[in-house]
């Protein structure tokens, strides 16, 4: 063992109880930091996973981000024109087959097209407003998690007959209709058609359960009087992280608004950033407290060892060695505490992962705390701890190393 390390270890070992307290201080700090990070990261991951699972990764709609330029504006560019009656455009994503073919040519993922129109659902004398969504069952299956949310009937039943409809369970009970009943859909264009309920879904999102009705795409196109038109393409990517890139290129090429899930949930993702800042602030505060413990013990040791410092300097140890010695003692406590803390953290995280409970919310049951197992958490907490230990050790070490041996030798006689 190198001499300085040997002396450092001897000094630390000579102060068993105080060293233990300092070690525990660091260990508790590291342990709880790790556990907290695992919980927070776990919750975040879980939330993002839910987002990614339930939402389309890229949502292409027939909206434009800026109002379309009117022909007259192109002609008289320098003139501001007001009171213009805009030209009627044919709304919707025109020529969907071509658009899908182009998307499929370069995006690894699954696609679903739909036409959403507003209408009213009627049964006996009751009626309720509804978003009537026309889908292609085969494509929808790959993109929408609604397939798994059925409480009666199933998604496949939509494709079974010509005029079937799937509605939310809340909507059904509002209408007083049940599985097998025939309800009337009235579109905003004034078209009326009868549909037979072949499935009831419950997504857990109230707005959807009471406001959505799924029918076949062609039926929706008839109701909306817009043959061969869709107004939404939903894309599920194999790699959800590529969504912003895909959205950007799609929007640039197709000219329709394409929104990545990250953009749609920007506020939530930003809240996570703030949450992480808060978490690391708390971790930093814990480490600061642990650092004071280390500062305390190293200060005490250097105080008690002033004579030893004088002796070693007189023997021919330079100041740098003395600085290194006490710095090493601080770092050793930091490192030892980190090692203990990682074990403690692991135990805590393991214990947390065993906690189980039941809540049925949002359509899914949560039975365990969401925990993220990540070596990075241990690394960050340890680096924090050793770093603060080094700082806490360095200050008294520098002071001790500067002492003049003559003063101490004189003082001792």
């Amino acid at each position: 063992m190198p001499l300085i390390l040997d002396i450092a270890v001897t000094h630390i070992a000579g102060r068993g109880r105080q060293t233990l307290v300092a070690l525990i201080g660091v260990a508790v700090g590291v342990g709880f930091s790790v556990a907290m990070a695992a919980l927070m990261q776990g919750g975040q991951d879980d939330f993002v996973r839910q987002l990614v699972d339930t939402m389309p990764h890229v949502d292409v709609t027939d909206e434009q981000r800026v109002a379309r330029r009117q022909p007259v504006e192109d002609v008289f560019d320098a003139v501001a024109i007001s009171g213009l009656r805009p030209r009627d455009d044919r709304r919707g994503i025109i020529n969907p087959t071509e658009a899908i073919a182009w998307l499929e040519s370069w995006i690894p993922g699954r696609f679903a097209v739909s036409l959403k129109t507003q209408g009213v659902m009627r049964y006996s004398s009751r009626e309720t407003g509804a978003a009537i969504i026309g889908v292609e069952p085969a494509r929808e299956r790959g993109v929408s998690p609604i397939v798994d949310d059925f409480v009666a009937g199933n998604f496949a039943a939509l494709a079974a007959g010509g005029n079937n409809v799937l509605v939310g369970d809340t909507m059904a009970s509002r209408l007083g209709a049940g599985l097998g009943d025939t309800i009337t859909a009235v579109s905003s264009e004034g078209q009326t058609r009868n549909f037979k309920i072949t499935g009831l879904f419950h997504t857990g999102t109230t707005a959807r359960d009471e406001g959505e009705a799924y029918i076949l795409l062609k039926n929706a196109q008839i109701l909306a009087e817009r043959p061969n038109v869709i107004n939404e393409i939903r894309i599920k990517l194999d790699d959800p992280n590529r969504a912003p890139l895909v959205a950007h290129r799609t929007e640039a090429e197709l000219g329709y608004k394409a929104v990545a899930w990250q953009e749609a949930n920007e506020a939530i993702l930003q809240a996570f950033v703030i949450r992480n800042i808060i978490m690391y602030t708390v971790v930093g505060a814990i480490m600061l407290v642990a650092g004071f413990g280390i500062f305390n013990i190293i200060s005490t040791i250097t105080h008690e060892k002033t004579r030893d410092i004088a002796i070693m300097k007189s023997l021919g140890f330079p100041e740098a060695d003395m600085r290194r010695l006490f710095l090493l003692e601080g770092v050793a406590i930091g490192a030892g505490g980190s090692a203990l803390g990682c074990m403690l953290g692991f135990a805590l995280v393991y214990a947390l992962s065993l906690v189980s409970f039941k809540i049925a919310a949002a359509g899914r049951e949560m039975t365990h705390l969401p925990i993220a197992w990540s070596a990075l958490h241990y690394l960050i907490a340890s680096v924090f701890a050793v770093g603060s230990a080094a700082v806490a050790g360095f200050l008294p070490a520098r002071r001790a190393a500067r002492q003049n041996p003559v003063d101490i030798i004189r003082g001792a006689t």
Partner: protein
Amino acid sequence: MSTLIETSRLTRILPETVPVTLVEDISLRIDEKEFVAITGPSGSGKSSLLYLLGLLDRPTSGRLTIAGRDSGPMDEKERARTRLEMMGFVFQFHFLLPEFTARENVEIPMRKLGRLARDEMHEHAGDLLGSLGLGEYLDQRPDQLSGGQRQRVAVARALANDPPLILADEPTGSLDSKSSEQVFEILQNLVRERGKAVVAVTHDLDMAARMQRRIHIVDGKIT
């Protein structure tokens, strides 16, 4: 005979609000294999002179050469290195590291210098302590030894790297007369048998009378 230490007009003034002159205008020479006493009343500056000679303190003015080398331009690291290679210290109090055994204390300067392999250091430390009559106490810690024994361990430590110069500050000051005599004889043997130069600060005039040469200091000056 070659010169180990030479000083010319060495002065050390403490820069307090009222400056305190510790030593003034000291010019002296210490050769190899000399046994020199520095004597003088308490507070005369004899210890301060020894610390200057041992590079533990820096002079305010004057010149100090060690083995022909000027100490003035040396930085802290070089001074430490010179102490390690050229000098051994023995203080009034033993000043051993309390957590280490006698043998480990003697090994520490050797390990710092790092010229020998670990097992050679171990053996050499044992031999040194044995030659000072401490063969049975190698693995005792300082608090398990008597005052005279501790001081002998300190002498062994001073000899660890075989330096040509031993500086002793009241080496017998805290010992009873029997232990004092023992330590004195050891120092004497260092000169006679090992060819060391020994400079010892003492206020014991009988002891000083038995050394080769005496430097008497009063109020920081040689008289």
